[in-house]
């Protein structure tokens, strides 16, 4: 009896061990592995961004990150406390480290994304005092021409809690870098660093016992580089020209393909200072800056297009068969036009009896008032929509603002009430004023159609198949006459002062009234006039007159075309 009980008891016990050790072995092996092994991410480098000639817009420099493995928030806090006795960690960084730990407790909590060499050497020296400390190389983003490309590439930063919850960032982990603004954000998926991993063995108190060789390391992978249509030299030149005194924006496109040659917004800022976490003082400085450097004027700035828009009026009039370049209007320009009240021409002296070509060259308002009246409000509004003034361009950049253009008269009813406006608004609209606000980008897009065959190209920063869309229906002869008129603007019209030796440039100036500020200066054009290679839109805030903008624009175009010529002169083998 006693023996039977003994054998039975031991068999039961043995059975329990059999179940745990043989049947449930895998499950427990897994648990013991997750007990002792900690995955330490190996940060990878983001994809390099090149311009069209293979010059580097964004690259990576070697850097160091410092993180710490902790089992609990309390132990992390005490580790941070003891670290702060050796190196400088301000309370904001401590709070951040704790937040990172809470978001991903099994990963080492990052203390410094980009630690200085001095910090790293101090910590390496006293490593034994800080079990769980992990110092490793972490490539950091670097922009060789930071100021010139700020509006274009954006910058990178640590992923926020809000972003972590978004479907776009599924699979991202706290502490990882993510593109903010510009190309970095737009092409995040391509540029994203492919993180590797290694394993360290820790004991029950999360002290690192063995650093390597515990399990095979997965090296980080480099994503393929991103090739853009940008001409970095032009970006640099634009930055140089705007300097510290001017503010505004430049957009340059290839007329046939829509390839973006340059996107620049001034005043600019140093995106390199955003890498590894922007200091709060610099960020505050930028935010409180009078001229808002963080505002991307090229895509988000909406300005009254002023006279640069007169080409739209002209094109619509020609499409309807109302005018040709030779047509004169009934009333010559005497400095103003009476329609319920006096609508002034910008030149009080008046332009006299002129043709459309001359009206474009001299930017005569009175001529366009009359043309606008002939087109009529309804047709003008619908035409503007067709020419793309009510839509964003669809550029592959984040943050583009949709221009403001009334789609129909209902817009005015809604805005001012049925009796709050009258149809004389068509006069203001036909010279690019009133309820019309365009981004420099959208104006550049419109001019790609004028520079070519009536097809506008969608602006593309990253090289892709061009997308073109027919905007208007003009015969080749009609188009030719428009282009000649635009060339006249620079050769003897409002932009005559901006002529460049050996280069024919076509384009239109504009002077936008933005009270209470001084007038804003526009120029949208292309060059060479006979065989356009570059379409460029520029706005200079408080530039007083379009001719100011024209001078900068022609310099930029010249620069682009001359360097392009030299580049082409180099034999390619």
């Amino acid at each position, binding site marked *: 009896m006693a023996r039977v009980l003994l054998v039975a008891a*031991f068999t039961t*016990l043995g059975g*329990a061990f059999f179940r745990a050790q043989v049947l449930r072995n895998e499950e*427990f092996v897994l648990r013991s592995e997750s007990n*002792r092994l900690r995955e330490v991410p190996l940060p990878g480098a983001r994809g390099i961004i090149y311009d069209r000639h293979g010059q580097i817009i964004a690259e990576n420099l070697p850097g160091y990150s410092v993180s710490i493995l902790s089992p609990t928030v309390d132990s992390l806090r005490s580790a941070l406390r003891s670290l702060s006795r050796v190196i400088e960690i301000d309370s904001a960084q401590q709070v951040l480290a704790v937040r990172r730990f809470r978001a991903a407790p099994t990963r080492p909590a990052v203390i410094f994304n980009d630690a200085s060499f001095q910090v790293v050497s101090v910590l390496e020296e006293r490593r034994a005092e800080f079990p769980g400390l992990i110092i490793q190389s972490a490539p950091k983003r670097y922009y060789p021409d930071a100021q010139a490309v700020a509006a274009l590439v954006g910058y990178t930063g640590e992923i926020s809690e809000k972003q972590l919850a978004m479907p776009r960032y599924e699979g991202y982990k706290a502490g990882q870098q993510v593109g903010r603004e510009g190309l970095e954000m737009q092409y995040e998926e391509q540029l994203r660093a492919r993180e590797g991993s290694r394993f360290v063995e820790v004991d029950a108190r999360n002290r690192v016992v063995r650093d390597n060789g515990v399990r095979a390391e997965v090296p980080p992978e480099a994503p393929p580089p991103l090739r853009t249509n940008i001409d970095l030299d032009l970006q640099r030149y634009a930055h140089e020209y705007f300097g510290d005194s001017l503010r505004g924006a430049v957009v340059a496109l290839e007329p046939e393909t829509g390839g973006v040659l340059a996107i620049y917004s001034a005043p600019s800022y140093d995106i390199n200072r955003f890498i590894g976490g922007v200091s709060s003082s610099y960020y505050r400085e930028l935010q409180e800056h009078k001229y808002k450097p963080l505002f991307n004027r090229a895509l988000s700035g909406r300005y009254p297009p002023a006279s640069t828009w007169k080409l739209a009026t002209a094109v619509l009039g020609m499409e309807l068969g109302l005018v040709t370049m030779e047509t004169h209007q009934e009333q010559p320009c005497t400095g103003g036009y009476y329609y319920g009240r006096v609508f002034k021409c910008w030149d009080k002296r008046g332009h006299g009896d002129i043709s459309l070509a001359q009206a474009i060259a001299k930017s005569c308002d009175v001529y366009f008032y009359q043309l606008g009246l002939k087109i009529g409000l309804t047709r003008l509004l619908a035409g503007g929509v067709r020419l793309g003034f009510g839509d964003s361009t669809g550029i592959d950049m984040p943050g583009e603002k949709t221009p403001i253009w009334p789609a129909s008269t209902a817009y005015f009813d809604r805005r001012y009430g049925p009796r709050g406006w009258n149809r004389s608004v068509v006069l203001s609209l036909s010279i690019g004023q009133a309820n019309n606000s365009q981004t420099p980008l959208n104006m550049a897009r419109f001019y790609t159609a004028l520079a070519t065959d009536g097809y506008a190209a969608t602006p593309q920063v990253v090289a892709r198949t061009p997308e073109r869309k027919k905007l208007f229906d003009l015969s080749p002869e009609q188009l030719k006459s428009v282009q000649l008129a635009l060339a006249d603007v620079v050769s003897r019209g409002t932009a005559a002062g901006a002529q460049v030796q050996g280069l024919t440039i076509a384009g239109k100036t504009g002077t936008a009234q933005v009270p209470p500020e001084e007038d804003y200066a526009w120029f949208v054009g292309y060059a060479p006039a006979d065989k356009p290679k570059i379409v460029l839109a520029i706005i200079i805030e408080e530039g007083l007159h379009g001719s100011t903008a024209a001078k900068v624009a022609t310099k930029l175009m010249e620069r682009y075309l001359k360097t392009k010529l030299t580049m082409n002169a180099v034999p390619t083998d």
Partner: protein
Amino acid sequence: MAAPGILRRQSIDVPLLVTALLLTVFGLAMVFSAGQTDMPDKGLETLWQRQLAFFGVAMAATWVITRGSVRLIEWSAWPLYLMACIMLLLLQFLGSGAGTAASTKQWLTIGGVRLGQPAELAKLATTFMLARVLASQRDTVTSMRELWKPLLVVAVPWVLVLATKDLGTALTFIGICFAMLFWAGVPWPVLLMLASPGISLVLAFSTGVWGAWFLILVALVLWYRPYLLEGVVLVVANVVMGVVAPVLWDKLKPYQQQRFLVFLDPSVDAQGSGYNVIQSQVAIGSGGLFGKGFTLGSQKRLNFLPEQQTDFIFSVVGEELGFVGVVVALSLFLALFLRSTRIAVRAADAFPSLVAFGLMSAWFVHVMVNVGMTLNLMPVTGIPLPFFSYGGSFLLVSWLAVAVLLRISAEGRGQADALGL
């Protein structure tokens, strides 16, 4: 009967001795392994040497004991018992705890020096005393009233041990008591009735289960027909237990309640009281069929395993030597117990037979509770594993028991069924 006082060479119980030696060597190896960690701990590393020294002392004591006769043990039962009880009483004033059981008073401590655990000695002494009382009881026991003497013998040290808050050892006393009563031929209905208030206490957590148990008990009482008074007392005792249990539960200290809840589900407090058991299970389970290799258990090396040199030493066996190692260890224990039972069967008369069975049952309770605990089959009570767990007085007492068994075996060889079983 073999010639008393002389242990002839051929009368040594070789299987018993070899099994006990193998277990001790196995245990020493595990104590050595327990000291091999990745964060070297001087104290832990040298434990096996101290354990080896204790083993030397134990061997010397064993040799001395085997010189003496069983009658000498029978004669010394009274003084030993009295001494043990006095020492247990002294613990109330001089006791101190250690390790995970810091709040208890298990250790006799004088001037800060821990001299030993009197409860270990008390187990031996109580076994002898109980054997003596039961052996003198000639008639077959048919009622609980006739058991007052043996019950009192166990109750005195049991209460004293409970007073030191050493729950595990207290449990061992109950195990020894029932095993020896069973061996002495007390009919199972009586044993069951004796145990019934305790069973009621446990089952009282579920009214339905307790109700069913109560009906069975009433049926048993009606069928077995004990004295009326006994029957009434029994039924009343069960009702009281069933009713007071929940009240008693509330009176338990939070850590005691926690221990019980963790036993039911360790994950209720995975970082706290459930941590030990979970890590022990992980260690054993990850050992697999052949283990991670001697001294190479990662759970142990990296300090995930708690108390790997004492309470959870069997987890080290499971992790490093795998299921094979576990089977070998358990087989050795089973062999030891079967051999001890055989010695009890073949003992010269009732006293040595009861002593042999009592010693075996004490070990048995230790092994079941300790090994069961590592897989969460038993609540964590902190009682050590014989021959394995590090601890001087425990190893000494275990070997004293071996010595007594060797002596009983030598004196009783060839004479089966001393008790007429």
